[in-house]
Structure formats: C-alpha cells, structure tokens
C-alpha cells in the first residue's frame, strides 16, 4: 500500500515489517523456501512489461501473528 502510494511501479508483497522477506517463526528449511518464492516473484516482476504500477504476490503462506 505504502510502496504504491510512494510511486513504486513493481511492488512485491512480502511478509511483515520487521522481516519482510522471511518468517522467523518457520523452521529454517521452510523459511528458506519462502525466501526463494519471494525472490522468484521479484525476478518475474523485473521481467514483466508494465502499462502501469502493479503489485506482484508471491505464492507463500506466513504466520501473521
């Protein structure tokens, strides 16, 4: 939300503010998998042809508490 308002064109949804590209509540291997998905999504975002600003959502689940 904030990123789009600030004018970013390729926004990737992360997890949460203190650790946006991971989830410390997960076991190490699952956390690595989650990080991988976010990075893959970011690479896709870089390759996409854009008409206007867009949010890219990685295929992840994380603990929201």
């Amino acid at each position, binding site marked *: 939300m904030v990123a789009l308002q600030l004018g970013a064109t390729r926004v990737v949804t992360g997890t949460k503010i203190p650790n946006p590209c991971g989830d410390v509540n997960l076991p190490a291997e699952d956390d690595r998998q989650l990080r991988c998905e976010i990075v893959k999504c970011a690479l896709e975002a870089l390759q996409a042809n854009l008409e206007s600003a867009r949010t890219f959502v990685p295929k992840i689940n994380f603990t*929201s508490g």
Partner: protein
Amino acid sequence: MKLELATFPVTKVQWGERTVYRDGLLEIDKQELLSLVREDPKIVSADFDIALPGDETRIVNVRDVVEPRIKIAGPGCVFPGILGPVESVGSGRTHRLGGMAVVVSATYRPTILSGTAAQNSSVLDMWGPLAEATPFGSTINVVLAIKLQDGVTELEAHAAIQLAEFKIARRLAETTRELTAPEAEVFGIGEVDPALPRVVYIDSFLTNWHAPHSLVAYYGLPVRESLPTYIHPNEYLDGALTKDTRIGSGEYTYTWEWLNKGIVYRLLREHGKRLNFLGVILQRTRFEAEHGKQVTAMCAAQMAKLLRAEGAIVTRTVMSGANLVDVMLTVQACEKSGLKTVFLTPEWGGHDGTEPPFVFAVPEADAIVSTGSTDREYRLPAPKKLIGIKPGERVQLYAGDRWLSPSEELTLDDTCLAGTTDWWGGGKYTRVQY
C-alpha cells in the same frame, strides 16, 4: 458514572518545615519527600529542585511529567494498578493541584543500547522559545532528579522512576484532602437529548510488543497486541492510562498529558450541549503485517458502529509509518461504515514544512485537523541553571545519537523537547493555512 474533579490552583511553591497547601501556596518539606523516594533501594541518589516559568533553567534527562492528583471519594485510587489495586476508576471525587507539575529527570545504565526499545529522554527549558511551545513551560515544576543503581533491568528502571514520581505527586495532592476547592467540575457521559449527534473518540496509540514495557499501560498493564477496547473517558482523569517512564523523548507522551488530554476534556464539556459523547475506543497500533492492520481497523469501526456512533474523532501517538497505516485504515473503515470521521494529528513536514506531512493516506481521510509540525527546529539559548545533570556533563537524548552540551546553546526539534508535540489537541501552537 460521574467524577467531580476539584482544582486547587498553585501559584507559589516553596520549601518549608512541613508539606502543606494553603490558598495557592504549596509548602514542601524536602526531607519528607526525599525519604519517600529513598524507600526504593534501586534509587541511589535523589534531589529536588523548583523550576519556575521564566527562570533561565534547563532540565535535562527528562523522563516524565505528572500532575499531582488524589482520589478523595469513590472507588479505587489515582493510578490504579500502580499505586493501588485494579478497581474501575472515574467516579466519586478527585483532587488535583492545578498550574504545577512534578518533572522527573533520571539516569541509569541501560541494557538495551539501540533500537525502538532503548531508553531516551528530552530537554525542558523554563524560558525562551521552548517554554512558549510546551505546556510544562508555564507550570511551576517540582523537579525530582534521580540516579538508579547499576544493574537494574529496563523494566525495573521504568518501575522505579514511575513509582518515585507518582508517590511524590500523590503526597503533594494529599495536602488538599480536608480542604474545599475553589473550583470543581463534574464529568460524565450520562443520558442526554437523543437528538444530539452521537460521537465516539478513537484513541489510537502505538505500542511496541517487543519492548520491556509496551509504551502505554491501562491500569498499569502494558498494552501489547490487543484489539480495540471500550473505556469511559473519566478513566483518563484518574490515571488509568500511563506510559513507559524510560521513554522521555518529545515525540512520545507524558503522564501529565494523559491526565489532561485536550480532546477528552473538550468532548466531556460538549456532552449534552453540542453532542452525545459515547465514550472512548482504545486502539493499539503498529501491527507488523497488513493482516493485523486490517483487523484492528475493522474492529475499531465495528465497535463504533455497535455503539451507534454517527461521528468519530481519531488521534494517534508517535511519528511512525507502521502506526500511521493502521490509523489511516481505521479512518477509512469508519467512513465506509457511514461514520463522519475526523483525524486530529500533528504532521511531519521537514524543518521548513515543505515535505509530505504523511507517508501514507487514504482518500476517506478528508477531514484532518493539524496540530502543527513535529519537525520544527528551535534555537535554544544557553541556560543560567541546569537541573538533572552536572555542569560540563554531556547528554545523549537517543541511544546512539550525538552527545550534546546542555550548558550551551542548542538547536533541536520537537522530538527532543518535552511536551512540544501535540498529539491530542489543547497544545500551544496556532495553525495558519497558506
């Protein structure tokens, strides 16, 4: 529920043989107060001073400011959960000493050395541009300066500072127990003309789940990742809301301000005249994922709707982007459920006021009351007297920040100055649109 708040104005404070209040004169037995403070073995040194408006005095290491209040009749005590048992407050009679404050200046060896959970403090001048901008520049201040034992934990430091200042405040207000106040006001939110517009106040405040104390406490219990809570506005007047006294920086809040919240008094005084004040929704903010932000916003709006509110006033605390998102989403959720919603807040804006005032906004936030900028810089002349620090000693207001020489001229913004950030209205800034 009705609370009579009786005011005993203080026009002069002086040291004396005993602690007594008479017709505006508060005489204080310094030794008596010192022995109260020394009851806590964690406090290794303590001293008192008096700072008057207009004095060229600078107070350093300011952690908190509190107004002397005491419960005279009715259940509970002032500062329930801290000075006495947890009992619902806000009814009966409470005495306050008006026009004065207890300021606590404290030093200790911190164990958290960086980040948002680290301690901080502010500067208070009794004269010049700072005194004009803060409510504590025009109160007669009894200043308690303490040093804590090495080895205290952060939470022990908070508890020691808070208990010392609260005990002093209670002892000073105790002098009015048998007296009749020259002025008193009765506050309540009882039944009124049903045609009046129904208004709720949403008090959003930032709390840190990860810090030793979360920043804000309700009946002494630090508020962490809770969802909105419905309370009676009179509870503020009896000190049900308090703060982390390790955190004295100017962008945070002071107990004095929680007791004298501009917006709460105004709504109470308008109750039955221009509006029907339905009460207060306390809302903890600074959720770390969008999910939490959406849930708290929805929940606050739903609670307001269940109270059949037609209008809401929203405020916040602490200059934080994470917190601003929660608050903006709350404004949006309220507007979407049909409530006319006003957001009252200070702004960012840079030293010259030309930077964006908010890092995030929603289109529904179309009625915003500004209480000024927190980025304004003040040039503060050198003081004649220093309290809370030895001459020549330097001070660091935030962990890891530059070291300042408070005996010299200083240039600082609101975040470093006690009481200049106006979170809840009633402050001293005048706003001009241009």
